[in-house]
């Protein structure tokens, strides 16, 4: 039996890494990316236009320099010789003004462009972050953190370069080209036609560049993501890498990925390194063509030599900014390829969807009901087949069973880490799919089997349970799980940094700190998944005592292999292969002499 098909499946890494896209996909991906770019730029159109205006002004000021020199020599000099210095003073004054204006506008442009770029980046960062937080675990399991990081770092870097490098040039370049072309047509429209003809190979070259660089940039993005994934994973598992002597192998593997990245970069340089001189070549050929054609007409006598000089200089000048345009186009290609990846991540749908019209849950009682629940991870085998279960509000239920039986899975359905493939999970009679995330998290909190601490202080880590908690409340929670003494023994007490992943504290201490979070969160339903497995026995007992008071008036699901933990439960569920084998008060089950009784006996033996 397999899980219900037709469910939304997250994209896995392999699909994300694909660079050989068929035409349709390639178009769609590109459109998605450009759409995102448009979305980001549209609200900033005003600011962009302002920045553009600044560039135009500073370019005009720069261009006016030679004209002013011309004016000074042509008119101010003769006037001065006549004894009239006013013209010189005026021209000089205008030149100074132009210098000041040009300089100020150029500087202002840098500021304005940075403001736009940074606000786009901030928004995109936030969007990606929020979206990755919303995405379901199913997605994260295959996408891996390295990929998310690469979306947030190196992909955004490409976008930033677009703003940094290309955008400045494009406005002034285009402007210069249009002006020059206009002047050329004015001087001699026939030569202007030569220019138009030259645009054909330029366009063809650009098409070629677009196709080739699009592919190469995609490869570059993929290669960079792979490199990051490998890096992150190796750093995370460094202890195992060293202990099992994988340094050489990992080094080789990383070197291989590094080569792939280098190859991708080389290909890009290669394509770009032909595109740019190609553009220059077309420009220079056009100048030669214009020379031949114009020269011919000079010989024929239909064009005079002075006009030919002007024509040639204009043609040459027309192509001067084309390298800048090429660079902009290159940066754009890079950014679009990066945004393809980012937009791909943003287009990913969470498989656990927030309700559009949530049922409010103002004061949850904590009654849990599973109706006919079937669940399997992805397309994998069914883990929980048709489960029916009711946990009345306030009850403490212990979930026991062999490893891999589906205990954590059941807990993850109740906390809605995943949605049931079939059937419903109800909290106070409301389908959890109809409860808003905020309400659900306020009502149901889980201490996961993996005790994860964030780098940061002990206090911050505990306060994750309830960010608005006072220091006294944080301390009270720490006391309740018996970790307060340990924390105060740390060099900076509650402000001590626990280091990456809580590496500063022992694994038992890590569990206690995670536990303290849950104490602080104070939810209606508390799910504890193997929350004390790494504790010493005295510590476990202390926690047990704390729990007894904590759980008095709330629903709790306690998953534990250590049956000592189960003592405080009102009810025990024995889960095997996703089915409830036994269900009853601990004492009754022991008396009945079934599975639980056997487990209990084995446990007694093992601790003696």
């Amino acid at each position, binding site marked *: 039996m397999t899980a219900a098909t037709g469910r939304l499946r997250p994209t896995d890494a392999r699909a994300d890494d694909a660079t050989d896209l068929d035409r349709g996909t390639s178009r769609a991906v590109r459109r998605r990316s450009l759409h995102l770019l448009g979305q980001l730029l549209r609200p900033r159109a005003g600011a962009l236009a302002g920045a553009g205006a600044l560039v135009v002004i500073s370019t005009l000021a*720069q261009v006016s*320099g030679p004209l002013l020199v011309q004016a000074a020599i042509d008119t101010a000099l003769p006037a001065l*010789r006549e004894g009239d210095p006013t013209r*010189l003073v005026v021209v000089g004054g205008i*030149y*100074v003004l132009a210098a000041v204006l040009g*300089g100020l506008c*150029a500087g202002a442009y840098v500021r304005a462009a*940075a403001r736009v*770029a*940074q606000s786009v980046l*901030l928004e995109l*960062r936030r969007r990606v*972050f929020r979206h990755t937080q919303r995405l379901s*675990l199913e997605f994260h399991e295959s996408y891996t953190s390295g990929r998310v990081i690469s979306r947030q*770092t*190196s992909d955004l870097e490409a976008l930033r370069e677009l703003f940094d490098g290309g955008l400045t040039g494009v406005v002034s370049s285009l402007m210069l080209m249009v002006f020059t072309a206009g002047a050329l047509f004015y001087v001699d429209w026939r030569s202007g036609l030569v220019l138009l003809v030259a645009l054909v190979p330029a366009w063809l070259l650009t098409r070629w560049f677009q196709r080739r660089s699009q592919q190469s940039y995609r490869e570059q993005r993929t290669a960079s993501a792979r*490199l990051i994934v490998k*890096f992150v*994973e*190796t750093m995370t598992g460094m202890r195992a890498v*060293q*202990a*099992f002597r994988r340094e050489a192998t*990992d*080094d080789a593997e990383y*070197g291989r990925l590094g080569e792939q990245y280098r190859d991708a970069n080389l290909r890009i340089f290669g394509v770009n*390194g032909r595109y740019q001189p190609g553009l220059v070549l077309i420009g220079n050929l056009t*100048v*030669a063509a214009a020379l*031949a054609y114009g020269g011919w007409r000079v*010989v024929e006598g239909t064009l005079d*030599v002075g006009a030919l*000089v002007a024509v040639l*200089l204009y043609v040459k000048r027309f192509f001067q900014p084309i390298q800048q345009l090429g660079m902009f186009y290159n940066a754009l290609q890079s950014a679009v390829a990066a945004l393809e990846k980012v937009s791909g991540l943003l287009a990913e749908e969470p498989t656990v969807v927030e309700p559009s019209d949530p049922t409010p849950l103002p004061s949850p009682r904590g009654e849990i009901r599973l109706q006919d629940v079937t669940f399997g991870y992805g397309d994998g085998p069914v883990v929980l087949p048709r489960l029916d279960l009711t946990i009345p509000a306030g009850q403490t239920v212990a979930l026991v069973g062999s*490893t891999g039986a589906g205990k954590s*899975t059941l807990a993850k359905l109740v906390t809605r880490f995943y949605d049931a493939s079939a059937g419903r999970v109800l909290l106070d009679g409301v389908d959890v799919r109809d409860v808003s995330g*905020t309400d659900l*998290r*306020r009502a149901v909190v889980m201490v*996961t089997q993996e005790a994860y601490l*964030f780098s*940061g202080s002990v206090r*911050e880590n505990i306060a*994750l349970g309830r960010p608005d908690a006072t220091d006294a409340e944080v301390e009270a929670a720490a006391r309740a799980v018996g970790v307060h*003494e*340990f924390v105060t023994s740390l*060099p900076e007490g509650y402000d001590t940094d626990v*280091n*990456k*992943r809580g590496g*500063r504290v*022992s694994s038992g201490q890590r569990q206690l700190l995670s536990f303290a979070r849950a104490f602080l969160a104070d939810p209606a339903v508390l799910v504890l998944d193997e929350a004390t497995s*790494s504790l010493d*026995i*005295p*510590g476990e007992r202390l926690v047990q005592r704390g729990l007894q008071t904590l759980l008095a008036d709330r629903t709790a699901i306690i998953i534990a*292999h*250590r049956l000592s933990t189960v003592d405080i439960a009102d009810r025990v569920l024995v889960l095997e292969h996703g089915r409830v084998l036994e269900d009853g008060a601990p004492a009754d089950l022991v008396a009945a002499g079934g599975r639980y009784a056997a*487990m209990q006996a084995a446990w007694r033996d093992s601790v003696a």
Partner: protein
Amino acid sequence: MPPTARADRPDSPSVPAGSDLSTLASLRRLLPTVRPALPRLVAGLVAALGASLAALAIPRVLQVLVEGPLAAGAAAGDPAALLWPTLAVLALGLLEAGLILLRRTLVMYPGTRVEAALRTTLFRHLLQLPASFHDRWAGGQLLSRSMTDLGLLRRWLVFGLLQLVVSTITVVVGIAVLVATAGWLGLVYLVGAVPVVVIAYRFSRRYRVIARTSQDQSGDLANTVEESVHGIRVLKAFGRGGDALESFTGQAEQLRRTEIRKAGNQATVTTALHLIPEATLAVCLVLGVWSAAEGQLTVGALAAFFLTAAVINGPVVDLGMTLSMTLNARTAVDRFFEVVETANPLTDPAEPRELGTVRGEVTLRDVTFRHEADEPPVLDGVDLDLPAGTTTALVGLTGSGKSTLAMLLPRLHDVTTGSVRLDGVDVRDLRRHDLRRAVAVAFEEPTLFSTTVRENVLLGVDDSLPAPERERLLHSSLDVARAGFVHDLPQGVDTRIGEEGLSLSGGQRQRLALARAIAARPRVLVLDDPLSALDVTTEEAVTRGLREVLAGTTSLVIAHRPSTVALADRVAVLSDGRISAVGTHRELLARDPHYRYVVASLEEDWVAHEHETDLTQEAR
């Protein structure tokens, strides 16, 4: 609010490494890596200069050709006069494009090669640095060095460096030409260069600091992203995605402000680089026209002066961009060397001793261990013998230092004082590779990788082993760890198990980690609380299997519970940083109150020793 990464890195002194060096000195550290690429870089530079010259020459040549030979030929009605000028322009045009092509081709290899080489160097160094380094350095900071910083460096090598040199040469030559041809007018222009240099220098100093801040902050940001994904289960379980976003936004906002500040500096220098040369030219214009009127200067010379000045002003403006690019690269180099120059305190000895066949006798003599020099020791005078082929359980309270002690055996940490010996040889006198081949660990947290079950289990098995042998090891170790569940996975042992193995259940992960340690067939096996995630039945089964494997292998088994202790021949009790008692489980139960307190589950024992809780906790 979820805690965020720290901006300060404990390993780095308050002044970041290399920041006291001049930019040149800092970049010079790259020389050994760049040297092989140097000829190409220089050739690329020459090509770049050639291309700029060609670009400058073309308009001039056009003008001269058209007004000279072509006009003369046309006057004579001779179409053949067209040929030579056209061909000359064509040749120059081809030359310019060719030189650009050449430059790009020449520099792309060095640029990317240096980047790749540095990246590998960094990674290789990180692979060598011990756990104590990795514990403290945020992953994002390392990652941003490896990707963002080295990317910056590549771009600088490929574009910035050449542009810097070409611009500088153009400016210097241009000014020299001005001074040589226009005399004092050239000197006036030169005077204008003085404030530019001063401003550029002051800008460099300020910009460097901001660039450093910005690169550090983006490293922190990467770190927050990493933690937000690794810790996503916790964030989801507590519904703290919103808070995480908020604190991430705070950090990103900080970075944004830094970037804006950076741009502000850049803007100032851009303004100055535009304004000052142009304003100087305005002054020159007035002075020049005046002196031309006085007859001291010809009109032609005046025009030539401004043509040359126009050529210089472009590169001056570019200098602003290239300068900041250079400073960014410099910061990147600093950050890179900060890690690469971190000495590895845990290295192979200069003259390693050979192990030969390992008997597997481990002795710890008077071992003390501190994580930080200014903190009380975690281990303080540990003496412990693990006779060859025996199994010893290590028992102690949470945080007593069991895992720390265990990490000393494969030398993932080094003792602060005292010694750990394998077969009588100090582990520091052995190659780490040899030592770790003899000693395998199952960590308390499984630490799996997102590859197949097979690769995870065979992690410590030599790749050179024949395939059937590897296969046998795989299956036998999976068997011992009772990890038969892998055969029910969609692709059996070839199923990928998700990042950190998180698509498996807790007990399944632990058994894979156990199988991995066993598959390495070590002489010394360290098992850190290996059964904590197993149910009683599975635990029994694994224990049975393990007993067979452990027979003949020296093992240290860290245990919290009697069931795990049962694996061992004898038990060592760790308390207050030393081994307080050694004996069999029964013996210790009978005579050691602390041991009873630590492992006894029965309520009576606990009550009897409750007063000890207070004592121990005070001691802790």
